[in-house]
């Protein structure tokens, strides 16, 4: 897929709380076909401390509006500056980058799972699976009920299960404690979240001989396979998360 450098205009900057914000960005040219799991590299203007671009998963795509959405957590000065963007502001973006989640075989029982800000690529993936005739289960984990975002969006995609660490909503505990994991069998699990969460899900999948794809987050400079900084240890050696990932089958990872 041809990589492009394009200016996007901020259509909306929504703040669902908890240091998160959702940017809806309109491209100045017609969007190419985008795949769930792919990411963009955003140039942060007006932040002298932010030298490199910032990579973000594509959270949602609306071809009708010619927009993409990014779900971003404020984690440092770069994301702080981005959080203050207003309608009409321009962002320079390199995209589409990276591989994508793979489509499952017919009639496969699917689980989308993730937590925190890691759910960013799951919404786009869920909608994409729906379009391809799948209705996945969705298991989301959060610290507490106040952290839950876009619950209704996920309900449109499939049946939603929740955990919160304090038990304020859904089952108490971490993601992999949820009863649905022992009560249901899945053929394919798609996961994105904090490293420890993805490793726990990978363990569950190995034990149950379930296929599993995870989307990794690594520090990167370029995003298109040149700097070789974002490597993941795989059975085929060090591979770049930006071009060989960010989606990896857990069979390939040295976890």
């Amino acid at each position: 897929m041809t990589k492009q450098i394009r200016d996007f205009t901020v259509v909306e900057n929504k703040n669902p709380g908890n240091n998160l914000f959702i940017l809806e960005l309109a491209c100045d040219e017609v969007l190419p076909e985008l795949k769930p799991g792919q990411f963009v590299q955003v140039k942060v203007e007006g932040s002298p401390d932010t030298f490199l671009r910032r990579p973000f998963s594509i959270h949602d795509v609306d071809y009708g509006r010619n927009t993409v959405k990014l779900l971003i957590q404020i984690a440092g000065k770069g994301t702080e500056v981005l959080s203050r963007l207003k309608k009409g502001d321009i962002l320079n973006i390199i995209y589409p980058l990276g591989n994508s989640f793979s489509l499952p075989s017919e009639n496969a029982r699917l689980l989308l799972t993730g937590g925190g800000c890691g759910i960013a690529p799951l919404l786009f993936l869920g909608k994409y699976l729906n379009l391809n005739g799948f209705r996945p289960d969705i298991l989301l984990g959060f610290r507490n009920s106040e952290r839950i975002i876009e619950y209704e969006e996920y309900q449109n995609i499939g049946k939603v299960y929740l955990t919160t660490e304090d038990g304020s909503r859904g089952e108490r505990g971490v993601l992999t404690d949820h009863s649905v994991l022992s009560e249901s069998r899945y053929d394919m699990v798609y996961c994105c979240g904090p490293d420890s969460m993805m490793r726990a899900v990978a363990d569950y999948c190995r034990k149950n001989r379930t296929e599993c794809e995870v989307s990794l987050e690594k520090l990167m400079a370029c995003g298109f396979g040149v700097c070789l900084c974002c490597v993941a240890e795989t059975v085929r050696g060090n591979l770049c998360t930006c071009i060989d990932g960010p989606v990896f089958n857990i069979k390939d990872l040295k976890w």
Partner: protein
Amino acid sequence: MVNLGFLIGTLTFKNPVLTASGTFGYGTEFDDFFDVSRLGGIILKGTTMEAREGNAYPRMAETPSGMLNTVGLQNKGIDYFEKNIYPRVSDYDTNVIVNVNGSYVEDYVALTERINKLDKIPAIELNISCPNVKMGGMVFGTNPDSAREVIRAVRAVYSKVLIVKLSPNVTNIVDFARIAEEEGADSVSLINTLLGMAMDVNTMKPSLSTITGGLSGPAIKPVALSMVWQVAKAVKIPVIGIGGIMTASDAIEFILAGATAVQVGTASFIDPVAPVKILEGIESYLVRKGLSDIRDITGIINRDS
């Protein structure tokens, strides 16, 4: 029409904008963004005889106006290069230059001999300055005797254009430039990254897996510029300036200080079309100044008035 061309040894460069090894992959990664053949040359990423896995993650840390890296020369080795990379890059209508690395003098020589057989590679850049590998690399670049030994051995087996890439992590880089010139190098390129370090105060650990790494980006530009100026005054062979060049104006600073050409490095990570923007900017600068030849300004500050 403005002339941007020049010679290094017997090799013609159509313009002075090259790309720095390790920041431009094999060029093909940039095909989506611009026509790589517009550049004066591309320096492919560091190559070794055997495949190297490189250093552990994390390999990168962003620092004020720059970044640290510790990739550790990850590459698939010369066999893979010959079979899979060379056929893809040999169609570029520009000088495709291989950056040559090794742990021992014998490795450098053996690799150079292999590359010498590749018709479409008219030059090598001898990397004696990588800060991120334990053996070789900077060991050769920071010890005058070792530097001399490896340059002499490579020169003995290579009659095409030989560029030696110098380390700034020395007391006096001019000494090493002189050694390269004495041993018959056609050019020196400088600077490689500066040794640097960053800490993560939250985890109380170093930011890089190898603790120290190489600093690049605009943060090092003034250091690089002063070294290029010193070296350009001291040697007669062409000097290629590298270090934090983000804009045409940055590149012109190096040229005025004595660089015959420049390499664009870290800038390509942020703006993949930076090299070609810099090329266009140099051209329009010359037009604006009413000059017809880049050589009119090369090292202008070093000339007797």
